[in-house]
């Protein structure tokens, strides 16, 4: 089914209005991230050298394919939001490369930061804090296009069209201010504002997490519709595994600033190949009254990303750890050879095969039913 969807997308762009900006064709990832790193220094010694630092993002590589939705999951402090901010250059990366459709971002001869931000937009979790309280909805949405050179009239017309598309009547809502809207409505405005620049990639950082469940489903439906209509690519960050599974074609699991596992979402959910992914899944509250969770998969809290353990970062909490795990850090490696390119299932675990074998015991069924 996934394959169908991706191929459907592959055939779609010919009809898409944004197609003219496509440079490398369908095979080239829309976004490639290479060894992205960000450490926050919290203490320096006499010479200004870092003594202790938070390893927020510590060497992350991934690709976002054209037309797909890549989900990023992980606990707080795993670096998922920092990754999003680094991509938008809201934070300056310490190291690493961001390549947007073949062009390195912010490098001579590459894509300028301004142009990149036009093509990549972001929606944040706090719908209220991300809107200017002194701007009407219409002004907020039209602001971006005007900064990028569109006339006021056209920008307002675009704002009204977008309002209509996110399911808010322009006549009723255009002149309202953020405090006059509910959380779900505000998040629709944020989505409309992000789309006003006609981006190709939308980063949704916990965009539905603060919404009520009954409203969350509406916004998820909206996101699916908009993706179809504009041929968008999503980077969907969330801590809710159910939502991520629903919306994502591929999923990336992060732990303490690194990628623990990455793969097609069905493959990853049905046969997790990293003990952390497995733990995350069995930590989801059960929806079956006869089959409640009996034991917690992990003990204690996620460790702080300041003093990292030697070897595998997950090793101190891992029930499957062997001697090697505390000595040498595993790299992200492919599991099977059938899948090629970016669609392969990768895991950063020395015992990935053993973990996957365990998955034959149906934890996914009891948890996700």
């Amino acid at each position, binding site marked *: 089914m996934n394959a169908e969807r991706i191929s459907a997308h592959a055939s779609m762009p010919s009809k898409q209005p944004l197609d003219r900006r496509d440079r490398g064709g369908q095979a080239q990832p829309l976004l490639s991230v290479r060894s992205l790193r960000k450490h926050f220094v919290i203490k320096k010694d006499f010479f200004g050298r870092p003594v202790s630092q938070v390893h927020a993002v510590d060497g992350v590589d991934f690709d976002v394919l054209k037309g797909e939705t890549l989900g990023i999951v992980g606990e707080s402090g795993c670096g998922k939001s920092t990754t999003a901010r680094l991509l938008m250059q809201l934070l300056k990366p310490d190291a690493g490369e961001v390549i947007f459709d073949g062009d390195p971002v912010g490098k001579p001869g590459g894509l300028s930061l301004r142009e990149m931000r036009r093509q990549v937009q972001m929606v944040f979790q706090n719908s209220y804090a991300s809107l200017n309280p002194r701007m009407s909805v219409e002004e907020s949405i039209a602001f971006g296009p005007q900064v990028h050179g569109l006339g006021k009239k056209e920008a307002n017309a675009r704002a009204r069209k977008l309002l209509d598309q996110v399911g808010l009547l322009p006549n009723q809502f255009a002149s309202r201010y953020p405090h006059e809207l509910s959380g779900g409505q505000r998040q629709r405005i944020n989505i409309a504002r992000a789309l006003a620049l006609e981006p190709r990639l939308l980063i949704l950082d916990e965009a539905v997490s603060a919404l009520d469940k009954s409203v969350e*489903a509406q916004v998820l439906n909206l996101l699916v519709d908009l993706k179809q209509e504009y041929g968008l690519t999503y980077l969907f960050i969330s801590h809710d595994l159910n*939502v991520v599974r*629903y*919306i994502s074609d591929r999923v990336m699991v992060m732990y303490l600033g690194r990628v623990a596992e990455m793969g097609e979402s069905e493959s990853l959910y049905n046969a997790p190949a990293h003990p952390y992914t497995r733990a995350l899944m069995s930590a989801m509250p059960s929806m079956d009254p006869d089959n409640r969770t009996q034991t917690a998969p992990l003990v204690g809290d996620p460790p702080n990303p300041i003093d990292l353990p030697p070897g595998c970062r997950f090793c101190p909490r891992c029930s499957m750890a062997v001697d090697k795990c505390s000595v040498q850090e595993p790299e992200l490696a492919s599991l099977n050879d059938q899948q090629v390119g970016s669609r392969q299932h990768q895991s950063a675990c020395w015992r990935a095969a053993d973990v996957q074998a365990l998955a034959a015991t149906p934890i996914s069924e009891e948890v996700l039913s």
Partner: protein
Amino acid sequence: MTAPCVTAHQSSPEQVPLDASSTAEQMVDVQNLKVHFRSPGRFVQAVNGVDLTLAKGEVLTILGESGSGKSVTLRALMRLLPERRTQIHGHIKVAGQDVLAMSRRELSRYRGFTTSMIFQEPMLAFDPVFRIGDQIAETVCRHEGVSHREGLARALELFELVRIPSAKRRLSNYPHELSGGMSQRAMIALALSCRPRLLLADEPTTALDATVQIQILLLLRELQRELGMSVIFVTHDMGVANEISDRIAVMYAGRVVETGSVDEIIRAPRHPYTVGLMQSRASGELKGERLSAIPGSPPDMAFPPQGCAFAPRCSLATDECQQEVPPAKVLGQQHWAACWKL
């Protein structure tokens, strides 16, 4: 007087509810509770006639969205709402005592001894400039009139009860030194410090990571069984409700719209709102399909609708629903729902 207290707790915690004075079978009995907030230029009818009962040793979850009045109901049970701006009508009886009629002195005894509460943000429950152990000891001293040293000993016991690793060392920590899950455990310890018979939990796991949330849920379930407490648990997450409760009450716009055992609510919900909530859950099986979302958004409780509050969002609604609030319809031994279309 104090030492036996501590030892009694150590040896047989299950005796705690037995030495209680009340003989009533019901722990909580709330009848037609209405809570209205008045502020200049605004009158919000947060809770509009809630009936709740809770048996001894039972765990009830109030499930609802933001603004449904679930937290306000819980706070009314503790009388934590600002008195000047709040009008509370109805009857609240906890362990046979009339909560709304209590004097200040009775109230301070009631809070802690009979009922205590844990909150969503554990960090806000502690004073940042005092050590955690001292804060718990202070509570014990104040309520039970024991010395600080005995209070500290009690705090240590409590820390072990909530399974905080290296409890002794942790007692001398300041709140900021504890992680999210740890400070939630410390708050549970604080809430249990006077052996309450009713524990009110206001979204205690919402701010936690999934792997920590499940630990706290399991801990609460264990403690509830061990201590024989009654618990009212407020959450918006159906999975959490399923994990923790015996019975679920679904609230919408200041009223309970459906109650029943966990089984009945999760497997066979009857009220259109509960049904809608269950169906709008995103999951892997629905991939590629549209979610059947409930249209619209919850009403503004400054202007509540006249009839059934859910009618504007309900696909089954008719004129009747717009006119009058539906009465509760009994569907089973514990199961009832308030809907005209049942």
